[in-house]
């Protein structure tokens, strides 16, 4: 019995580990491929030929480094998650989304076509949204997920615009082609705009100022998700794109200044914000933002050393920050809290986690013999080579100091701090299961290994640096670590870190005094715009869709008048007013009849009189047609006008019987100056149009065609009739149908009226 339950439990644990097989298999495959096939790998096949989109894959050192991080950290996250999420009811969904996310990340870093890369990029944003909001019953989770989506999504739109512009400038969407051709279009004036748009996309994705605020809020996600998406992989995608383009644009001053300044500002702001936090996970999140800022700054720095520094920091950060997130997860799992005020002296309850935290923290602080130290060395050398500004160096000391303090908080304060009997605080700390210890342990051991023997990782770092800076000599990697310079810089950072650690609580309180400054910060603007945008949309809708028919008509007529007037102004010089031909008496009479009818109709009050007066216009037109060679028109107009008056009279009679609750409009006949002005302008502009058109040369070819074809083709002599019933017979048939349906609607009017009488 006992044996069986034990067996069951073991089966359960193994079953939960199944999803981890996917990244593990991919990792094995990748390592094997790296060992067999030299970089870079190319693969290409036509996808959408009409749009010029090829599905071309390109894997060089930089992509390979990212691939290793994605599947390597992915394997660790899946193993860790199998235990961390064991009791979580949404476990399956998390793993499903994580697999999709991994696929999207792999797609993003291997695709050579920028638009394909963009699709995968957006997919990661979407999956990040779903994973942050996985606990969708919590309002905070929903808000954070939406914030991440809106910030990275709108950045993604800018990125798309930037990509399209870059593609227009460079004549290709292939990253490799663009990098090759870059020297040809570096002078293009549109390039800065394209790069600025790409910056917005990359900065929003990689949580750079002013888009940095979404990342700490994204900590609402489960810890494995935070470690994977929001520290190791997705947030580095923006840096990845910048690093990719670095080979093409590193010589541009705009490139260097933007990246160095934004990166530095982000790192400093994040370092300052770190001190305010009391939640271990949020502390780690802010320090991740600081590292991302440093990475951006390094990408911007010119020189080969900077490329190596980026590659080294990518790796080092993944190897120490992911374990620290796992440590935070273990603490959460073992005690139910992540507040650093409650967590002290945990080494007695969680010795293995304590060891992991210590090793990871050593690397984070950049102490010698760790991989963090190697990265710090590369960074120091890069700054020296690039002759970075002093201000940037001061900023780096502050950022390093804070990261030392964060490392100390995570390792020393939490695990070795004075024990204030956590049991009294209601915590029942216990060590995490094996599946939650092995992954971080493996990562910190790897970090130590690469720190002790950096030559092991050199080929990969060299290949990655070569992808960013084609001039990078891959045999020089080992020589690039300058130990003394780092030790000097470290001394300052260690002292500063110690001070910050001791004064953490006081500094936090001090910082909280400046809390009111937040109302001018980017996050405050984010919330403000969430309120203001719908309000603005509503205002605009109210303005345009006011529901008042007369005002709609007014807008339409005004715009039409302006268009006609603009046309007249543009074309006027080539035109001439027609001469005053002799006027025949019947036409003059008809014109008078028309004008008089129209003028009186404007101001008549009684509806019946209005109807009769408006009829004058129709009859006047008929007379006019009769004397200008259009008898067919005249007869039709007479007939139609007569029938119409009958119909209107019927309607008016019915209306007279309808009691109106709100009455007829009393002011209907009153003079409306604005309407009169608009109407006059419209009429006058059309009169001018007719007069000017009459002076233009006339293309008679259609009339000639009908005149020549009428007898031989249509066998008739009345050309107007032939056009209607022969040349355009089907049209006329449709017209008859329209008339028929309209009369169907009118028919009841007379029927019931007749029946009633």
């Amino acid at each position, binding site marked *: 019995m006992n044996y069986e339950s034990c067996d069951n439990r073991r089966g359960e644990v193994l079953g939960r580990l199944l999803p981890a097989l996917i990244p593990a298999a991919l990792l094995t495959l990748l390592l094997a491929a790296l060992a067999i096939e030299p970089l870079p790998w190319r693969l290409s096949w036509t996808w959408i030929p009409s749009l010029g989109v090829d599905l071309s894959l390109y894997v060089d050192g930089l992509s390979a480094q990212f691939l290793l991080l994605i599947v390597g950290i992915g394997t660790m996250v899946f193993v860790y998650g199998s235990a961390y999420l064991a009791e979580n009811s949404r476990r399956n969904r998390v793993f499903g989304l994580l697999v999709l996310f991994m696929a999207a990340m792999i797609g993003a870093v291997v695709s050579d076509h920028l638009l394909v890369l963009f699709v995968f990029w957006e997919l990661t944003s979407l999956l990040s949204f779903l994973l942050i909001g996985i606990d969708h019953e919590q309002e905070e989770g929903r808000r954070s997920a939406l914030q991440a989506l809106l910030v990275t999504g709108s950045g993604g739109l800018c990125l798309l615009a930037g990509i399209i512009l870059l593609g227009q400038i460079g004549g290709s969407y292939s990253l490799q082609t663009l990098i090759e051709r870059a020297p040809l279009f570096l002078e293009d004036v549109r390039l800065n705009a394209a790069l600025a748009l790409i910056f917005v996309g990359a900065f929003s994705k990689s949580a750079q100022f002013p888009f940095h605020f979404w990342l700490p809020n994204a900590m609402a996600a489960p810890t494995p998700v935070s470690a994977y998406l929001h520290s190791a992989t997705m947030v580095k995608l923006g840096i990845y794109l910048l690093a990719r383009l670095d080979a093409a644009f590193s010589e541009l001053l705009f490139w260097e200044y933007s990246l160095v300044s934004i990166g530095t500002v982000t790192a400093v702001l994040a370092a300052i914000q770190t001190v305010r936090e009391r939640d271990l996970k949020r502390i780690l999140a802010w320090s991740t933002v600081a590292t991302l800022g440093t990475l951006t700054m390094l990408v911007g720095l010119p020189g080969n050393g900077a490329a190596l520094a980026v590659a080294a920091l990518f790796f080092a950060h993944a190897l120490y920050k992911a374990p620290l997130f796992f440590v935070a997860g273990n603490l959460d799992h073992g005690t139910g809290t992540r507040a650093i005020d409650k967590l002290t002296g945990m080494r007695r309850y969680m010795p293995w986690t304590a060891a992991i935290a210590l090793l990871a923290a050593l690397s984070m602080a950049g102490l010698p013999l760790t991989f963090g130290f190697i990265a710090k060395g590369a960074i120091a050398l890069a700054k020296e080579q690039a002759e970075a500004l002093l201000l940037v160096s001061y900023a780096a000391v502050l950022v390093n100091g804070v990261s030392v303090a964060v490392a100390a908080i995570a390792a020393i304060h939490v695990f070795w701090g004075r024990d204030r009997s956590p049991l009294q605080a209601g915590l029942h700390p216990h060590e995490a299961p094996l599946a939650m210890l092995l992954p971080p342990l493996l990562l910190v051991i790897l970090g130590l290994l690469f720190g002790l023997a950096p030559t092991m990782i050199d080929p990969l770092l060299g290949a990655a640096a070569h992808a960013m800076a084609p001039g990078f000599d891959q045999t020089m990697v080992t020589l690039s670590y300058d130990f003394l310079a780092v030790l000097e810089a470290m001394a300052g950072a260690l002292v500063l870190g110690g001070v910050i650690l001791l004064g953490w609580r006081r500094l936090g309180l001090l910082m909280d005094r400046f809390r009111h400054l937040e109302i001018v910060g980017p996050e405050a603007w984010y919330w403000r715009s969430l309120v203001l945008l719908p309000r603005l949309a*509503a205002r605009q809708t109210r303005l345009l869709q006011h529901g008042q028919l007369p005002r709609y008509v007014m807008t339409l007529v005004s715009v039409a008048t302006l268009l006609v007037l603009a046309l007249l102004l543009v074309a006027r010089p080539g035109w001439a007013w027609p001469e005053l031909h002799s006027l025949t008496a019947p036409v003059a009479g008809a014109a008078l009849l*028309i004008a008089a009818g129209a003028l009186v109709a404007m101001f008549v009050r009684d509806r019946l009189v209005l109807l009769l007066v408006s009829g004058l216009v129709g009859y006047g037109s008929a007379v006019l047609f009769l004397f200008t*060679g259009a008898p067919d028109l005249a007869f039709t107009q007479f007939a139609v006008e007569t*029938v119409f008056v009958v119909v209107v009279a019927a309607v008016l009679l019915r209306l007279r019987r309808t009691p109106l609750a709100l009455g007829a409009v009393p002011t209907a006949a009153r003079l409306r100056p604005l309407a009169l002005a608009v109407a006059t302008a419209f009429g006058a502009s059309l009169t001018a149009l007719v007069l000017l058109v009459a002076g233009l040369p006339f293309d008679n070819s259609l009339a000639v065609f009908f005149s020549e074809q009428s007898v031989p083709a249509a066998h008739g002599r009345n050309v107007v009739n032939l056009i209607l019933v022969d040349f355009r017979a089907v049209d006329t048939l449709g017209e008859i149908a329209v008339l028929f349906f309209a009369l169907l609607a009118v028919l009841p009017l007379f029927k019931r009226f007749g029946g009633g009488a």
Partner: protein
Amino acid sequence: MIWAIALALGIVIAAGTYLALSRDLLRCLIGLVLLGNGINLLLFTSGRLSSSLPPVIGADEMVLGVAANPLPQALVLTAIVISFALLCFSLVLALRIIQLAGSDDLTRLRAAEPTSQDAVKPALEEES
């Protein structure tokens, strides 16, 4: 001749527009009638007033001699009939609306786009 017609059609169109801008549904419709008449005249004159003879081919001829342009006449003929159908239908529609809503004031006929104090989502007015 063209001056007289151009002035007349300008006045008709102005009058039609003025009436169409009215709040009174029926005046609005009469305005549409006038506008239709004015536009027909515009169409007709844009084909030039070359002759006052109707475009009919003589009994012993094969092509049209000196006569008015037949093409605008055909177009205007179609327009007259179609606008007649349109306006008859609109009149019946207007009658029905006035009977249902109990008002012929266009500013009050706004079931589709109701007024509301709510800035975000306008509430529908109560059915009367």
